[in-house]
């Protein structure tokens, strides 16, 4: 990032650097290209801000060709999921806005777009991750203003995640999942502090707090991704608002 313009990059395993700039991206401050996910085929997905600050998704092929992803229903931007927006088949997931209402979506490799509505009446649905099998996870805002996590399989079967009791007083957003449909996310307590969780397709939830977790607003344990071995990584915000990494290993 220079002159506050955002540029994407790929760093290959041999250390070679490739710039990732969608030609349709704007070149003013804070505009530009924001990759979020790279899959095992070398495809990259993300979104860019154009010269009018409109937001569009993109897929970049391994050869460097860009495809714009605009959900056909969107009139106020299409975003690719920030943490796990692209799977091995080339399907992308994210959310699009109609006015100020957000809907989740999956775009299949053939270009077909599917809206994800775990709760149809929700004014805000976000997809955080899509796995190799096409299952997605994310969260939505309920009518009471709290958040609920979900796992939705390609056949439409949906599991909801809600941590009960004080640990989940303000909601349970889910972020990403692995190929075994194990989900990770946070529950937010009445102080606004975060606690990590792993959720399973049968609805079982295991919560955890990493060492040094603070207990104030926005502090605590914040998982980011879970791999196919069940290893979760993320960060902890301590009581001084300093971030530390953590690795959770099942045993």
């Amino acid at each position, binding site marked *: 990032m220079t002159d506050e313009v955002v540029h994407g990059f790929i*760093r290959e*395993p041999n250390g070679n650097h490739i710039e990732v700039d969608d030609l349709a991206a704007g070149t003013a401050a804070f505009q530009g290209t924001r990759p979020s996910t*790279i899959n095992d085929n070398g495809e990259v997905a993300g979104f860019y801000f154009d010269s009018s600050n409109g937001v569009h998704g993109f897929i970049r092929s391994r050869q460097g060709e860009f495809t714009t992803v605009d959900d056909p229903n969107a009139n106020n931007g299409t975003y690719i999921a920030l*943490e796990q927006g692209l799977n091995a088949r080339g399907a992308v997931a994210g959310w699009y806005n109609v006015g100020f209402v957000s809907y989740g979506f999956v775009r299949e490799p053939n270009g077909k777009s599917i809206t994800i509505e775990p709760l149809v009446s929700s004014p805000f649905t976000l997809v955080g991750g899509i796995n190799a099998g096409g299952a997605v996870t994310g969260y939505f805002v309920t009518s009471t203003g709290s958040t609920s996590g979900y796992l939705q399989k390609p056949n439409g079967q949906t599991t909801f995640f809600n941590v009960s009791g004080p640990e989940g007083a303000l909601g349970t957003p889910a972020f990403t999942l692995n190929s075994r449909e194990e989900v990770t996310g946070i529950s937010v307590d009445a102080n606004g502090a975060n606690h990590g969780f792993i959720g399973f397709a049968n609805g079982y939830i295991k919560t955890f707090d990493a060492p040094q977790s603070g207990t104030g607003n926005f502090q605590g344990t914040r998982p980011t991704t879970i791999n196919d071995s069940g290893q979760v990584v993320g960060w902890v915000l301590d009581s001084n*608002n*300093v971030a530390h990494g953590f*690795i959770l290993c099942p045993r």
Partner: protein
Amino acid sequence: MITPIRFVSWYSTLLLGLFTALCLLGLSLTASAQEYQIIAFDVPGAGTTSSASAACANGFLTGCYGTTPMANNNAGEIVGIYITNEGVYYGFLRSPRGQVTKLSEPNADTTPGDFNGTYPMSLNSSGAVTGL
């Protein structure tokens, strides 16, 4: 003579170490595992400056000093960012054995205090990284 209790303790310790090693190396574990071990880490160079407000962590792109992992792959590699005490973002790639490689894009703005720099978001099974 080893008592059963000591044997169980020794055996449990061995299993714990084995499972942790397998996990860090990205090898398979049981899908229904319900017990966990958590390992904390800070990468060299990460800032330790307190932020006045935890709002630095409000959202997906943290602006807090310190170490912020963003993704792991099936090999157990971890990619993330760290913010130095001088207010510069750098990326890191951490191997399953804990070796850390600093990531800094050649054209990234590393002016102290600008809170710009390199921000990795994802890596694949080959260790290729993407970000901004």
